[in-house]
């Protein structure tokens, strides 16, 4: 029962042992730190890059062109905004060269609020990412999906962006979210793969569990909770929050279906449509700022295609359109969706009389 950060690390380990991953790199990704969140601890191909995000993305593109399988990290997505042109190039190289060159790279980066990260460790990246054609975009909400999506990302022949929901990285898996081959309990796993703090670290070696490969197909959503009354379309950090809101609403007789998109591009339109056709009510939840937001794309498309099946106006719950997320708890709380807000939005949708 790994945490998400352990799941990612194990996937990268499987990647470098069996799937041809050659370079896992970024700022502080190699020894001694192994990543700001330990995602890359003790991986044999992990190395520290210069402090230069443009160089990191450029290096990843170049490695991919040369047939390597790089996984590049941007330490926080907040620091990827000077690389958008390069991300666009990664996304358009196959298209612009009419199939001559593809770019099989993975870029991973922590996103979102929830760790009191203030203005520059709280950004979301889903709106920006979904605006970058040629990329596949995934964002897990639990350790098992993180593992399976990372393996799929690694073997994908296209650039794949793996958005790590910061606030969930240390959350434990729930039953049913096991990674095939991992030891049953967290303590055992931690002893095996988490480096000790302090002196002994440099001599320590991990003992990797015998992991099986698990591929969560990119483009396939997961129904995190079934329900007949309202559909929540969400991903990442907002998934467990929405499920918990839904569980609490059950006592009020409201049954909420939570669709965890997992893939933001391509997204699982069939799953979305099927759920909305059943519930006729829909709430999109994400943390990114609410003007020109990916949830607005989903709503636009739902409205265009299912207008007469909607029994209430679809609603978006997203980040406030302000220049940053403030440090003080009051500020962060007022800036991104939380369970209470999700509950009241759901209640309103469910009770709405058409």
């Amino acid at each position, binding site marked *: 029962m790994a945490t998400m950060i352990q799941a990612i690390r194990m996937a990268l380990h499987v990647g470098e042992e069996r799937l041809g991953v050659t370079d896992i790199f970024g*700022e*502080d990704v190699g020894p001694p730190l192994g990543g700001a969140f330990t995602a890359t601890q003790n991986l044999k191909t992990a190395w520290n890059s210069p402090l230069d995000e443009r160089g990191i993305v450029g290096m990843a593109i170049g490695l991919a062109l040369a047939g390597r399988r790089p996984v590049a990290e941007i330490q926080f997505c907040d620091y990827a905004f000077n690389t958008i042109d390069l991300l666009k190039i990664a996304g358009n190289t196959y298209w612009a060269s009419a199939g001559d060159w593809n770019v099989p790279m993975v870029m991973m980066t922590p996103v979102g609020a929830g760790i009191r990260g203030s203005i520059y460790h709280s950004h979301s990246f889903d709106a920006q990412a979904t605006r970058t054609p040629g990329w596949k975009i995934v964002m897990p909400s639990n350790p098992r999906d993180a593992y399976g999506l990372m393996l799929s990302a690694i073997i994908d022949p296209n650039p794949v962006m793996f958005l790590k929901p910061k606030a969930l990285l240390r959350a434990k898996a729930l039953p049913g979210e096991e990674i095939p081959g991992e030891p049953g309990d967290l303590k055992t796993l931690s002893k095996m793969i988490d480096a000790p703090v302090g002196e002994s670290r440099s001599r320590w070696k991990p003992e990797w569990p015998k992991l099986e490969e698990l591929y969560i197909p990119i483009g396939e959503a997961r129904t995190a909770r079934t329900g007949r009354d309202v559909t929540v379309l969400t991903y990442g950090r907002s998934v467990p929050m929405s499920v918990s809101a839904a569980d609490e609403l059950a006592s009020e007789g409201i049954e909420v279906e939570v669709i965890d998109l997992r893939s933001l591009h391509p997204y699982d339109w069939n799953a979305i449509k099927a759920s909305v056709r059943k519930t006729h009510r829909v709430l999109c939840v994400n943390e990114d700022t609410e003007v020109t937001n990916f949830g607005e794309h989903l709503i636009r498309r739902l409205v265009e295609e299912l207008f007469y099946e909607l029994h209430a106006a679809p609603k978006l719950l997203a980040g406030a359109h302000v220049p940053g997320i403030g440090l003080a708890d009051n500020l962060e709380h*007022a800036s991104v969706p939380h369970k209470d807000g999700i509950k009241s939005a759901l209640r309103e949708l469910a009770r709405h009389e058409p």
Partner: protein
Amino acid sequence: MSTTAQTASSSLASGSSSSSHGSENQLAPELQLRIHELMLEARVLEERLITMYRQGDGYFWIGGPGEEAFNVPLGLLVDKGTGVEHDYLHLHYRSSGTLLAMGADPVDALRQMKNTATDPYSRGRNFAGHYSARKWNVAPVSSPIEVQYSIAPGTAMAQRATGSKGITIVTGGDAGTAEGDFATCLVWSSRKGSELPMLILVTNNQYGISTPFEGQHGEERISDRGKAFGMPTATVDGNDVETSWFALKKAMDYVRTERKPYLLEAMVSRLNGHSSASGANSVTNEVDCLSRFEKKLEERKLRTRAEMDEMRARMTQELLEASKRVREEPQPKPESIWDYVFADKNYVAGEK
């Protein structure tokens, strides 16, 4: 930290400082004492901030213990004021020493640490050490590494255009010089016929978070990167107060008079690691500029150990008490997220 680099740079430093400031490398006694007091205040402030973090009175600490010998002289040498006639500062997050030397109230730093509504730098929005002081031309410190190097040429261009005697000072760390913005600063400041009055500083603590300098740089000295652009450069021991003072003085005089850029690298220590994210524990294998300077003051009989201990104890007590008061100050209100979006009115996406 590689001591070789430090030694190499020390020798450079004394060479450079002696030339333009006489054979004496010693500051006037009153100035030494003033610098010491400010260094001590800066150190005690950082300690208080770290303690606040540890006790849950703040969520994140980053700061400059180990840079006081360089940053305090910088703050004292600045032509402080508002507007284009004075110096502009584009600093990073290890600059408390500079701010205190300019006259900042340390209690305001505690407020930012505690993210109170009274925090004058960001009203509870930004991390500790993210100063902003328009009254003294201190541009807002922002977290993204190195962007200040792309912005600073703008204030220098304004100074050039208005014929002011003010200069622009920009500073940042060693690892960050890998960002293209550092090159942007060198390119834009040195254009022939359009040179800018910029003092370009790098405080080299030989680390970017966990990543050592070695292995990430092809250049022996970061300051060498200025040479191709025809600007004077120097690498000095930033752990030595007087070396720092004279090196800064020399560089600032050059920039102020010649209206051209100067690249100065200071070798400094990082006495509490990168930030609270790495524990903020004190390291023992790096030079402590404060104890080094205190030893000098003792030797020079300018201040006794007992006096210094007393000063430290008093400052520590004062900031402890201040931190208790700050704890009672109000937190920003949730709806204040909508304040200061626009300078004319708070109009956002059709709201209000």
